């Protein structure tokens, strides 16, 4: 589990090694910058004065620095705060319940003495091979479950994922059977064993999968696009999507948040400020959670 991605290669000495180091640093620096620069561009665009963008376009270094876009966002934050509240609550509830169900399911499937575990595994796995497609699923949610415009439909579709169940199951399969066996002899029930003994041993896997689930919820806009029409129920990413495509809508949202009617909106810098606000929290926690993602990927790669 502990993914020590450290190179065991000796320090460079010969000329071939030096050449490889030069190629390596150049290439990696180039690709890394390529990954990073767009973020800087969005940030500096959001800090550029609107008239400067209109005249000269988006720039890597603001020609005229301005906090106007952010001022506007935070002066009338009504809709934005609602979107944040929706995303945070959906993420919190979904991650908690999702982790609980994923680990519970994985534990039952990981128990070697459970006769039907292969049948159940296939029952779950088959859903990744064949699906009814978007249309029946959509009609099911809207016409039969009547979940359109509810917070529940933002939580439910991402709650469980066969891949996470499999990763969790392979992690649990690494825990010695003796733990379950001896607890059973002591008279502990299956659920108790899972809750008291197995879960604490699964902390690294829980952290990794929990973060994957949480990231999925945080970044979800698809379910909102399909099922949410009420502005008050829009999660952050979908709110951003709406605002990017529809500046008139943004003006209305500003007005409904208390801005004056004939407000001059710096649309271009505002789009980028909205984007920054939508990624912000992720980038803030990113340095601390990256490790867990690396662990999770490593488990997935090794155990398939």
């Amino acid at each position, binding site marked *: 589990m502990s993914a020590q991605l450290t190179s065991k290669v000796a320090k460079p000495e010969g000329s071939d090694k030096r050449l490889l180091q030069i190629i390596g640093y150049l290439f990696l620096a180039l690709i890394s910058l390529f990954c990073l620069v767009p973020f800087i561009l969005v940030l500096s665009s959001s800090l550029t004065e609107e008239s400067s963008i209109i005249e000269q376009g988006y720039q890597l270094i603001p020609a005229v620095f301005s906090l106007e876009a952010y001022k506007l966002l935070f002066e009338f934050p009504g809709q934005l705060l609602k979107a944040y509240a929706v995303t945070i609550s959906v993420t919190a509830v979904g991650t908690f319940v999702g982790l609980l169900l994923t680990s519970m399911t994985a534990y039952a499937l990981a128990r070697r003495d459970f006769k039907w575990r292969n049948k159940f595994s296939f029952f779950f796995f088959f859903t990744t*091979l064949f699906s009814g497609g978007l249309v029946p699923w959509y009609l099911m949610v809207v016409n039969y479950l009547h979940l359109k415009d509810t917070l529940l439909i933002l939580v439910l579709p991402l709650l469980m994922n066969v891949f996470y169940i499999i990763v969790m199951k392979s992690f649990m399969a690494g825990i010695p059977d003796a733990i379950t066996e001896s607890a059973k002899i002591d008279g502990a029930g299956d659920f108790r064993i899972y809750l008291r003994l197995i879960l604490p041993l699964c902390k690294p896997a829980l952290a990794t999968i929990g973060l994957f689930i949480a990231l999925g919820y945080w970044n979800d806009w698809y379910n909102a696009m399909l099922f949410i029409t009420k502005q008050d129920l829009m999660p952050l990413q979908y709110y951003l999507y709406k605002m990017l495509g529809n500046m008139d809508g943004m003006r209305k949202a500003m007005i409904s948040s208390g801005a004056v009617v004939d407000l001059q909106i710096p649309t271009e810098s505002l789009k980028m400020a909205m984007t920054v606000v939508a990624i912000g929290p992720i980038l803030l926690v990113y340095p601390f959670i*990256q490790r867990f993602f690396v662990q999770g990927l490593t488990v997935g790669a090794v155990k398939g």
Partner: protein
Amino acid sequence: MKRSGFWSDLVKYRTLLLMLLPAVLFFIVFAYIPMTGVVLAFKQYTYDGGIFGSPWNGLDNFRFFFESGQAWQVTRNTALYNIAFIIVNNVLQIAVAILLFEVANKWFRKIFQTMLFLPYFISWVVVGAIAYNLFSYDFGMINVVLTTFGMDKIDIYNTAEYWPVLLVIVSAWKAVGYGSIMYLAAITGIDTEMYEAAEIDGANVFQRIFKITLPNLYPTIIILVLLAIGNIFRGDFGMFYNMVGNNGLLFANTDVIDTFVFRALTSSNDIGMSSAAGFYQSVLGFVTILFANYAVRKYDKDRALF
């Protein structure tokens, strides 16, 4: 005794079965019941009749889908994009992983990895916003650069020809961190004795990479590529939709099955045809993934999906 086997098992495993119950219900409601909805592909959908009460219309939905000329276009686009993504992404990820492994300075390796992994963490909506920032005709960074060098502006959002290249770049950008870490993990697992032996034999670093690292990665590469081929008819809806949206000018080069089905459902409300297209995709996907799994199984039984 024999007759009671099932019932006694039921009692014996009652707690485990109860623990499985929520997940079973979840997949029944969100996967298995919708699967039965594929019948819609053969029906003339009416709101009152719903999924099961609507009248049958045979293959009319499919005829409409295939005769519209769209079926071939979206299938071709989906497959070609995925093939391009598989090739470009894997080559880039493997190169990055090998170089990350070879780079001597730990601190730099961490910095590179952190930057490379960044795009993985943002939603496709944000990627769409970044794309706008770069590609917009009036304000986009690319056009700012072009005009600075005295060149003509390019109208990316109105020119279909640019998009295959752009989408391949965007896909590589988003996936490079994720994939290279997977490959890096596989490289880290290679027995170091092989490297030491090669060093003693006087192999230079490039020989070491091409004669040891790469051959040792082949199993991982083959498995990952085969599995990706299994999903070749599944388009990445989030990417295509947020990059292109409903910009019909670009569809010839950017429309994939998933975006087509989505539009048929939401804009033209053509339930029959969108179910037919969805069903077509599901069957196509099912067959290719079975084929891919068969290939994986032949190659390495333990890595097969089932």
